[in-house]
């Protein structure tokens, strides 16, 4: 009882900060790679910083930078962000079922900014309902890691030898592989979708070179995901138990 009362007084925020430390550290190093990538694509340090602050997402930003570098249209940019980030809608949906009553509309509007794969993972696996302050804590420390890493990568990236910066170009892709490989190993449907998308992407690169990177990603991922959903529809029970084998 006593403890519960104390918890209400604002240590929710501290708990959120604490739970978010691993995310913040992870983001720091990954966004360092993003900063280098952005500057390499001709984007200024300040612009890279602003992109990270306003977007807070790895895949969307990486692809966004290549759209900018290629001089793509704003329509392409919007479509690319839509397809790449549509997964957040699913996470937001799922997370909305877990919110505390204190999560009024203004809180929802604010906290929605911070729905990322990792923040979603931490919040959705937390016991009980989520309070606004807790989520703000997780978001704050994660965002600090993300923007400071971007700044450092963009600013110091130019000072580092090219052998280091070119190797750091792999950081984001390494993270992407770390996200897709473990579930692909466990679920045949994911493995199928992933291989299908990779194959289509290679085909586009070499046989449809007039397609820009952004559209290639959109076309390949939509076809692969539709194929995956048609051939390997997921059953209800798989939804929660990620570990359940097919």
């Amino acid at each position, binding site marked *: 009882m006593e403890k519960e009362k104390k918890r209400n007084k604002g240590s929710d925020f501290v708990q959120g900060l604490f739970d978010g430390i691993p995310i913040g550290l992870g983001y720091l190093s990954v966004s360092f790679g993003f900063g280098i990538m952005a500057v390499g694509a001709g984007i200024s340090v300040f612009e890279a910083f602003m*992109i990270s602050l306003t977007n807070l997402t790895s895949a969307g930003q990486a692809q966004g930078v290549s759209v900018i570098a290629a001089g793509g249209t704003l329509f392409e940019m919007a479509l690319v962000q839509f*397809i790449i980030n*549509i997964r957040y809608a699913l996470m937001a949906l799922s997370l909305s079922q877990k919110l505390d009553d204190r999560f009024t509309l203004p809180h929802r509007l604010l906290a929605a900014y911070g729905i990322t794969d990792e923040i979603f993972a931490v919040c959705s696996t937390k016991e009980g309902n989520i309070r606004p302050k807790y989520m703000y804590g997780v978001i704050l420390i994660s965002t600090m890691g993300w923007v400071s890493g971007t700044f450092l990568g963009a600013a110091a990236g130019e000072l580092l030898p090219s052998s280091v910066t070119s*190797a750091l170009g792999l950081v984001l892709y390494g993270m992407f592989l770390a996200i897709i490989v473990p579930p692909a190993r466990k679920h045949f449907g994911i493995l199928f979708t992933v291989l299908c998308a990779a194959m289509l992407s290679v085909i586009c690169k070499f046989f449809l070179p007039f397609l820009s990177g952004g559209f290639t990603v959109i076309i390949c991922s939509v076809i692969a995901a539709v194929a995956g959903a048609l051939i390997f529809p997921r059953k209800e029970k798989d939804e929660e138990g990620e570990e359940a084998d097919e």
Partner: protein
Amino acid sequence: MTMAAYIIVMAGMTYLIRMLPFAFFRKKIKSEFIKSLLYYVPYAVLSAMTIPAVFYSTGSFPTAIAGTVAALVLAYFDLPLIVVALAASLTAFITGFFF
């Protein structure tokens, strides 16, 4: 096209995708197809973004391939994201001395 316009479109679209369902959606999606599709989309996107782009990410095929193989092996053994990401990079860096 100015940079500000790109950033506003990027940030606006990303925010709307997160905010609309978070703030306003109260029902549960019933369609098995839509649920499956939403489930597969992130993996498809990440895969299409990574292959073949990762092989060009370091400016040299041998280092990129070495880094990718390292990432695949470590990811296969379920190591944390950050370990896989940094090890891939380190492998490419070390391989760089030989090629």
